[in-house]
């Protein structure tokens, strides 16, 4: 099922030509009249600019790391401090298709960082068993798009283990990691954001970081947390997001949304990659409309920080929620529903959701599909003028 083609994602600027060599292919020669990139061949730049957070001073010495390196650092810290911890999944032994586990097998041993057969239901089922036996299990699903074979194990087993056994057994030691979200060319099966499916499942925690500093702290919290956690890693940020990340372990609390910038007119809520879009939208709104936006990174989807979001909406009276996942049944609908229950009389305008369309994630139409800053900006305009 998930076996088909796996993309080995190169950077945004891979060349069109193929080098000659023992494989017998020839150099793709272009005529002198062609420019090296035609209009149709030029790939779009990313739909956001990543702004690094300030260097944290409270966690000790820092090092420049991108998102995948910050994940490696978290995993390294974990393997060093927890002798029961094991990391497994498809292709993690050589370092992983996104390099998140580079160097760990050599450093900690093949019994602790190992490949499994190609079977997501097995990876999660196995991970549950490791956790039930008392060891720390960190399972990697190669793309969030392939998590569905494991849906039964996650929803029917992992989430319910403690409850159904009267707290005699649990798999709190389980953390599942998966690359998540759009990447520019991922199409149906390398771009999905499935958090809404799991948000509907009591017993799980679902966490999505926006940056390397957040990712390391939140991942370490998930690993330490005594409940099964799913940690989605925005793949488009793996190389693009670079920050000064503390080398030592530190945790960022779960279920606490972060107010990234304060504002008085509109509350903007998102998670993961979309935070960077909303930060730009906030600047645009300030500059072009004189509208002051409060930007909130939800971070934990389940259980989510209702209090922080509602407190903000009580102040601003307007709420915009944005995510790449399709709008119907997306997590914005849960936030919207709860906020209107709690803050009905404070609302100056209907709650706005700027999300993906109700289609599978398209390939060539991605620039039209994604909830970009122009769509968010327009939604703010409508809310202000309601």
């Amino acid at each position: 099922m998930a076996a088909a083609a796996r993309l080995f994602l190169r950077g945004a600027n891979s060349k069109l030509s193929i080098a000659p060599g023992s494989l017998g292919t020839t150099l793709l020669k272009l005529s002198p009249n062609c420019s090296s990139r035609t209009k149709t061949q030029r790939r779009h730049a990313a739909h956001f600019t990543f702004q690094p957070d300030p260097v944290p001073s409270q966690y000790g010495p820092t090092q420049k790391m991108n998102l995948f390196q910050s994940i490696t650092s978290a995993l390294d810290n974990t393997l060093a401090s927890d002798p029961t911890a094991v990391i497994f999944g498809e292709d993690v032994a050589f370092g992983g298709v996104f390099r998140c586990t580079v160097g760990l097998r050599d450093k900690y041993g093949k019994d602790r960082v190992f490949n499994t057969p190609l079977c997501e239901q097995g990876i999660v089922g196995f991970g549950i068993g490791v956790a039930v036996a008392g060891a720390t299990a960190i399972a990697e699903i190669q793309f969030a798009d392939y998590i569905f074979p494991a849906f039964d194990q996650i929803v029917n087993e992992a989430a319910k283990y403690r409850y159904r056994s009267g707290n005699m057994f649990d798999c709190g030691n389980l953390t599942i990691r998966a690359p998540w979200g759009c990447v520019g060319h991922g199409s149906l099966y390398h771009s999905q954001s499935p958090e809404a499916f799991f948000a509907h499942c009591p017993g799980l925690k679902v966490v999505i970081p926006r940056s390397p500093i957040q990712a390391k702290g939140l991942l370490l919290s998930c690993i330490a947390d005594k409940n099964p956690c799913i940690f989605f890693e925005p793949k488009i940020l793996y190389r693009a997001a670079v920050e000064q990340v503390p080398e030592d372990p530190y945790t960022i609390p779960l279920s606490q949304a972060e107010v990234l910038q304060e504002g008085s007119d509109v509350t903007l809520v998102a998670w993961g990659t979309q935070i960077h879009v909303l930060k730009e939208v906030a600047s645009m709104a300030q500059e072009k409309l004189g509208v002051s936006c409060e930007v909130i990174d939800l971070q934990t989807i389940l259980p989510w920080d209702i209090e922080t979001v509602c407190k903000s909406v009580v102040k601003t009276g307007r709420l915009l929620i944005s995510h790449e996942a399709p709008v119907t049944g997306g997590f914005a609908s849960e936030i919207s529903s709860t906020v209107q229950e709690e803050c009905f009389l404070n609302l100056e305008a209907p709650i706005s959701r700027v999300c993906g369309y109700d289609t599978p994630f398209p390939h060539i139409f991605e620039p039209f599909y994604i909830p970009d800053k122009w769509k968010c900006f327009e939604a703010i305009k409508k809310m202000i003028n309601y």
Partner: protein
Amino acid sequence: MAAVSSMSKMYGLCFRAVRQTAGLKAYRLLQRRGFRVTVLQLQQTFDSSLEKPQFPGASAEFVDQLEFIQPNVISGIPVYRVMDRQGNIINPSQDPQLSKETVLNFYQKMTMLNTMDRILYESQRQGRISFYMTNYGEEGTHIGSAAALDPNDLVFGQYREAGVLMYRGFSLDHFMAQCYANADDLGKGRQMPVHYGSKDLNFVTISSPLATQIPQAAGAAYAVKRENTNRAVICYFGEGAASEGDAHAGFNFSATLECPLIFFCRNNGYAISTPTNEQYRGDGIAARGPGYGMLSIRVDGNDVFAVYNATKEARRRAVAENQPFLIEAMTYRIGHHSTSDDSSAYRSVDEVNYWDKQDHPISRLRHYMTARGWWSEDDERSWRKQSRKTVMEAFERAERRLKPNPELLFTDVYQEMIPSLNKQRESLWRHVQQYKENYPLDLYEK
């Protein structure tokens, strides 16, 4: 092993029980309880001058005759047994020669289970509990395998393994408490009857989805291997559950990751109404083991000594060699699938009677015992009376007990209580205070 060499003959291939790859210099480290070097770590050198296949994916010879391997379902893997149907030992070297005390304990546990089943099945019929599943006919598979394990070995079950718990000492009160979902239920009243669990007895709580426990058992065995404490894991499932994808996942993972795990398949002929010829077309479950590189055996599940011997040896080697074993215990489900099933809709009374009267694990063991003068008619009568009395007393206690406090509806979802759930809890309480006459509060602890 006899089973494996006959397997080799059937398949006509050079079948090795232990994973070795012909073209490579395979070597074994000292058999520490640690980790065997897998041949994959050795860099393979490819040599096209050799007339041997160089493919990384399989080790085999070339052949120039076109021939499809026949799946041998006519004379499949043979069934290992120690006693004949009359309880006589066939090959004395296979008699485990257990003490009288041990054998009597086997018998008493099997019959106590049978008695408890009869009473609880009836209690469902009378509307006292909501649901029940009996173990009729499969008592031998439970007691034989449980007796061969260490008490610290971790058990993952499906739902028809109550005898394993009973053998380990789970009290009648605890069985009943779970079925009645009363305040003594270790599971806090959350699950349907027969979804037992016991942390103290290392029996992981049963869940309804089938076969989900199989890859979990592989993971637990892996963790247990790393602990280096000489523990094994056993995983029970039926022949129907073995069709699930999770079963394939569990078998493959346990073999590739070298887990000290016993897979114990109770092949009882039916998955609810689905007979085995609609469940699989190959030679049962045991024949799948070699496909995963797993040592496999088929045993007479109604012969408690055969089950005991096979499980004992599998356990010993699983722990010593860090590899999984597959035991397919052939048996027959004498009872209905559950209280929601009437099996006369899909099988004949004659068929059921055959197994009940002519090939029952309890009677076969009794014959073994009476032949040795260990059990008499009087013993039988007084034991039946005593066990029935014990069960009835536990039953009456369970009937009288209140249900758990409804607060327990909201706990253990997470390790900690979360604010949103707490609000829901408070809202339920306010509602129940207001509408209390519509809620059966008297049945529950305060």
